[in-house]
């Protein structure tokens, strides 16, 4: 599929679910979506449009806990990154592991390093930190002190 075809399919299938569309360059697109729409968007990108889940970036910003899902369209060399903003006080979102197996570890990582809860994750336990890591201490948060 060509780039234009993919973009028009995304626009058509995900109409109303994408809030903000920014084309930084022809090969880098950043969009924003509501947290509740992430599973449907992920399903559509991964299953219907055959995008590859590359990775997700969790970032603690002053206003929100952000998760940026990077989807690669290898057919046309494009990265399509879907940003969603979670409540900083109680960040939670539905897991996409059931849709895309490759997301299992990164969701565990974001949970332990940033304190984001992924609902319905099949195996939520520590990935990088030790099992006796103190609860409620998240090393990638801005306010983290050792």
């Amino acid at each position: 599929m060509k780039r234009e075809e993919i973009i028009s399919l995304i626009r058509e299938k995900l109409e109303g679910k994408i809030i903000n569309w920014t084309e930084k360059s022809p090969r880098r697109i950043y969009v924003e979506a509501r947290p509740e729409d992430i599973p449907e968007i992920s399903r559509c990108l991964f299953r219907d449009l055959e995008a590859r889940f590359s990775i997700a970036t969790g970032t603690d910003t002053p206003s929100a806990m952000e998760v940026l899902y990077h989807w690669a369209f290898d057919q046309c060399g494009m990265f399509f990154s879907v940003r969603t903003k979670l409540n900083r006080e109680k960040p939670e979102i539905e897991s996409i592991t059931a849709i895309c197996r490759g997301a299992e570890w990164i969701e565990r990582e974001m949970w332990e390093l940033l304190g984001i809860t992924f609902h319905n994750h099949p195996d939520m336990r520590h990935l990088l930190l030790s099992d006796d890591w103190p609860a409620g201490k998240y090393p990638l948060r801005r306010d983290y002190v050792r």
Partner: protein
Amino acid sequence: MAKTTIIPIGPYHPLQEEPEFFRLHVEGEKVVGLDIEIGYNHRGIEKLSESKTYEQTVFLVERICGICSTSHPLACVQAVEDAGEVKVPERALYIRSVIGELERLHSHLLWLGLAGHFLGFNTVWMWAWRYRETVLELFELITGNRNHYGMMKPGGVRRDIRTEDLPAIKKMVANLKGPLCLFRDAVTDDPLIHARLQGVGTLTKQQAIDYCALGPTARASGVARDVRKDHPHLAYGRVDWNIITAKNGDVFDKAMVRILEMLESVKIIEQCLEALKTVSGPIDANPKSIKPGEGIGTYEAPRGEVIHYILSDGGNRPARHKIRAPSFMNVATNQTTVIGHSVADATIILAAVDPCYCCTERMAAVDAGSGRRICSSGELIRLSQEKTARLKKELGLEGPRLAIKA
């Protein structure tokens, strides 16, 4: 119901990079389950990177892995350049590709040698590492270092390849072709290697897609995925080369993909060196600052796509730096490939994704009840080598012949 025994593989050793821990669930000789634990040596590099300037960040990520020590810098500088919309001079693109492909050669040869050792073909091990030495000498000649080359920087490269060095470099690269063809023929034609590796540790195409597997692990399963081709960057769009794929996804195909890929790497390097004769100009765009924004950089490391994401707030250091190495996606595929195979095959299956270090060297089986060590790394490798010896006898075969001409 058969009794399940747990064999923990990978005791943690602080001197090694990236320790991993596999817990094999075994019934008799058959593996029935696998737990993977990573993070024994979590270094917090993403956090650390936020306290470094962009130039320093490159040196930091170079130390993520001693084997892929240019893949991370390549992805990192491209992420910074993507964020800051920096245009890299053409000559630097060719030099970057040469360094990247040399790294693939040394990494694949390293893997090939270890795989040979695990299977009991120590001649393969010695020869593969002998020719890897040529690659390390090439690194020394071009970059001044045998490892951790320090070549990448945002905007270009730190050192030029001198015109007077080109003939020597070309000769050394050309000399690699003979041995690589020999390895290819030795593996392709040898019935003992077929018996040992075909149908072992198979990852199907659909599984490779579901796990988002990368690099040779995915390509061996028929997923033609390679960011050098798919997301054209550096000089890869300007030279002629092919993506190597196979269709069965077993350990044999993973080995074949790596061996054939090395021949493609030589092809790429030779074309880049030829281009360097005519493409002149600066090797560094020397960006003074990175404007606010975000950028993604990828590079096809020997094990698959490395991706770096940089968030710039306009300062001289990243506000957020996300790093994902290919093993993060590939190691998880072991959860499916090792099931149903014998313990003697587990060593080579777990090593077939080429996890960023040799996990098997730290293997040990421990009695779960008493904590007593019952099976050391040496013994697990011995189990694997014995299987080869047994097959050798049963099939009346000799093993790969490596008649290397001096």
